[in-house]
Every structure is written in C-alpha cells, then in structure tokens.
C-alpha cells in the first residue's frame, strides 16, 4: 500500500548532510603486482594444504611422502651396496611415479580453481586490481610450482644421496640437471592440463575424475597402441603415437634431448628430428592451456 506521504522536510535550511566521520584511505596502495603475488603464494600454500584444515593437508602431504620414500630407499640401497650408479636414472623417476603425480594434479587442480567457481569468489577476485591474465598466471604458476616441488624433491634426495655415496660428481650433476629440466616441463604440462579440465566444472569431485581420466586414459590408450605397433614391427608408428599423451610426450622429449633411456616399448625413443616435433607439441600444449584458461576467465561466473 503506497500511501502518499507529504514531503518529509520542507525545503530550506533544515536539510543538511551530516558528517558522520567516514575517512578516506590514505595508506599505501599495494597494487596489482602485490595482489598477483599474494594470489600466487596463497594458491601455492593451498596446494599443500598449508593454511587450510588438517584434513586437507593429509592427501597432498601423503602423496609428497609417497613420492620421496622410494628415492630415499634407492639412496640407502646405493650407499649400503657401494654401487657405482643409482638404481634409477633421474629422468626416469617421474615416469615411474606418474600415477602419484597424476593423483596429485587431479586432487589439487580442482582444489585450486573449482572452489572459487563454486562459491562464486571469482568475481570478488576481479573486483581487486587484478586482470584475467593475472588470475590465470598466478594459478597456473602456483600449481606448476607445487608440482615442481613434488617432482624435484625426490630428485634432490637422489642427488644428495648419490654425492654421499661418493658417486661421480660430474656425472651425477649432469643427470640431476637433466632431471630438473624434464620435471619442469612435466610440471608445466600437467598443471596446464589439470587446470583447463578443472576450470570447466565447479564440482570438485567431477573435476578430480575428469583430470585423472584425461591423464590415465590417454596414457593407457597410447601405451596399448604403442605395444601393438611394436608387435607389428612398425617402430616409426610407436614414436608418433607417443605424441598423444602427456607422460609419453615428456618421455619422448627427454629421450631425444636429455640423454634419458626411453620407456617406449622396444626402447627406441624419438630421434632429433622427431624430438623437435615433441618439444614443439609440448610447448604448444602449454601455450594452448594458457590460452584456454584466458578464454575461460574472460567471462566471470558460470
């Protein structure tokens, strides 16, 4: 019921604006770069459950331990038996432990982006002085760094152990450096794929399943086809099929350029020419992941 009120206050001197003491902010404004750095460090901490509940620390820490324990055992064996070489190459370690890495990406990529979508906090981020590119790069860099920590830590354990076991310094340092380059590429690749898949769904559960499906099924499909192509004696096909799953892509790059033994069936990795294609595809995938994420966050919300 709209009742016509008479004009509350007659015009004149009686109307005035009260000063109730609001003050404008005159402290330092930290700006865009600071916001981007904060988002990066918070996402990186979040990827290991730091600053979150105890329950959400369990899984990433458990996976981290599972990654490092085999390295520690290998070092112990190498020291005890006075071996001349580590039982496993630096570059091979991540390939062998790929199930753990996949599980880590699958559990932490949705944690990083899906919750922002589900609780509709993305618009709040963009009400700060950050742009789409800042959000995407901060999240991408944070997950890639977290993965690098996960994959490089066991290599460090191996390296320190190898030096303690008095293995050849130059040889070990070269292997360690090659391993670091390889896991850096792997981290960027896996983080990109994980984030692209996870940013599509606000449901954490579906995100996890979708990421693991992309990583596992592509590897399963590629290794099945490779095994069959190897039986058919078409080793050329083995190499080209390897382009279609992330882990075989990394395997191909490192066996072409980083002196690694290939894990492909038949043991013949790509040569230099094919290796260039591998590198290009890997870099293209990373760029594509970044581009897709930028497109995904052009429009905020779902």
């Amino acid at each position: 019921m709209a009742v016509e009120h008479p004009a509350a206050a007659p015009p004149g001197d009686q109307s005035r604006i009260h000063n109730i003491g609001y003050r404008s902010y005159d402290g330092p404004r930290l700006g865009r770069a600071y916001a981007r750095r904060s988002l990066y460090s918070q996402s990186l901490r979040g990827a290991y459950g730091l600053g979150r509940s105890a329950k959400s620390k369990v899984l990433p820490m458990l996976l981290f331990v599972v990654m490092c324990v085999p390295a520690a055992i290998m070092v112990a064996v190498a020291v005890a038996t006075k071996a001349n070489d580590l039982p496993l190459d630096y570059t091979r370690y991540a390939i062998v432990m790929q199930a753990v890495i996949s599980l880590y990406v699958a559990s932490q990529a949705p944690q990083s982006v899906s919750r922002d979508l589900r609780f509709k906090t993305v618009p709040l981020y963009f009400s700060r002085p950050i742009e789409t590119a800042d959000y995407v790069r901060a999240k991408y860099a944070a997950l890639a760094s977290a993965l690098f920590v996960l994959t490089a830590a066991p290599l460090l354990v191996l390296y320190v152990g190898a030096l303690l076991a008095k293995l050849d310094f130059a040889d070990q340092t070269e292997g360690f450096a090659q391993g670091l380059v390889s896991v850096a590429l792997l981290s960027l690749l896996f983080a990109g794929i994980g984030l692209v898949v996870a940013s599509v769904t606000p449901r954490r559960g579906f995100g996890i399943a979708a990421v693991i499906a992309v990583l596992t099924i592509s590897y399963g499909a590629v290794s099945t086809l490779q095994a069959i192509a190897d039986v058919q004696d078409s080793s050329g096909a083995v190499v080209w099929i390897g382009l279609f799953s992330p882990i075989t892509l990394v395997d191909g790059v490192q066996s072409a350029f980083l002196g690694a033994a290939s894990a492909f069936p038949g043991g013949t990795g790509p040569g230099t020419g094919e290796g260039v294609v591998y590198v290009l595809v890997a870099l293209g995938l990373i760029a594509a992941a970044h581009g897709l994420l930028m497109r995904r966050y052009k429009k905020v919300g779902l």
Partner: protein
Amino acid sequence: MYDPTVARLTYRALLGRRRALILGALPLLLLVISVAVRALAGADDQTTADVLGGLALATMVPIIGVIAGTGAIGPEIDDGSVVYLLSKPVKRPTIIFTKLIVAIAVTMVFSAVPTLIAGLVLNGNGQQIAVAYTVAALVASIAYAAVFLLLGTVSRHAVVFGLVYALVWEALFGSLVPGARTLSVQQWSLAVAHKVSDGQLVTSDVGLPTATVLLAAVTVLATWYAGQRLRSLTLAGEE
C-alpha cells in the same frame, strides 16, 4: 525399496549438463582405439583380450564406476542439499538402494555396452572374448557402484580414494603383490568372465565360487553400511 523421484533426481545429477560428456568421452575413446587397432593389427584374439582387459576392464570400468558411484551421492552431501532429501518421508536405505540402482545402470550403460561393441569391432566375438569381457564389465559395474557409493557417504574425498583403490591397489599392487589380486573387484569379475569364455585368454587368479561369494558379499555389505551411514549422517561444515 525403489523411489522413482529419487531415481529421477539422481539421473539428472549424473547426466545433466556436461557431465554426460565426460562419461561419454571414455567409451567413445575406447571405440576409436578399437577401430584403430583393428585397422592396424587386424583381427587377433590375443590383441583383443589385451585391449579389452587392459583398457576397458582395468581402466575404463573403474573410472566410470567412480564417477557414477560417488557422483550419485557425493556432490549432494558436499553442498549440503542432501538435507532436503533426508527430510522427506523416505527411508534412508531406500534412498541408498535407489541411488545404487541408478549408479549401476549408468555404469553398465557407459562401460559394458562399449566393451561389447569394442569386442565385436576387434575380433567379431571370436572365442566369446567380447561376451566374456562384457559379462565381466556388467558384474564389475554392480560391485564398483556399491563400493564407491559407500565411499561417497563415508568421505568427502571419495573420488580420490576411489581412484587410489582402482588405479593404485588394483593396477599397481595387483601386478606386484599376487595376494592383492584376491581382494580386487577386477579379478572377481574376470573369474566370472573366465566361466563364460571358451579359451584360455580370459584368466583370473580367483576361483569362481570364491569370486561369486565375495562379489555378492561386498555389494550387499557396502549397500547396507551406506544405508547405516546415511541414517546417522552429520553434515560437515565447509573445510
């Protein structure tokens, strides 16, 4: 014991929007691969058994089971909307049973049917391999759906634990520690498949009687305990 409304809601939660695409992508990939393998290698019984056993039964069925089983109840508990369902005069075991039926149906449709088609494409059901692996996928669907539905009511990280079971326990430990194979849904379903197929291409480490008993026991126990869990469900706050 079966509530059509709950079933309809669960179907919508599982297949609505883009989720059917995730579920549909895996079987599609299996079909593409089997066509490629047939073109590359021709019809070969051993290859067929490798593809169906390694890719379809060992990877695809568990992943679809995880998505369907935990997806039937997990998201609802996660976002708290399950209270609206629980406050209706429907028995909690009925809710679980209905969701189980839906999860089993979805898993079967998206895993057993493509397995059959892939088997037919690969070698035209020579030595009954296609049918054997389809039966295995059907049997495994029931057990996986029940186990992962239980996980969905027990833990907020049901998907991760489900995947750890399917990928780490069955694939990794199963290939390293022979004893772990006795406790694997995959091997139990292979035991049933072994009975169906004629040849020696489909083998299992578990005898048929043991496998049948274990399959039935796991399914029934998981469903019963999931019902109990739902009866005393406490809604967790946001972590």
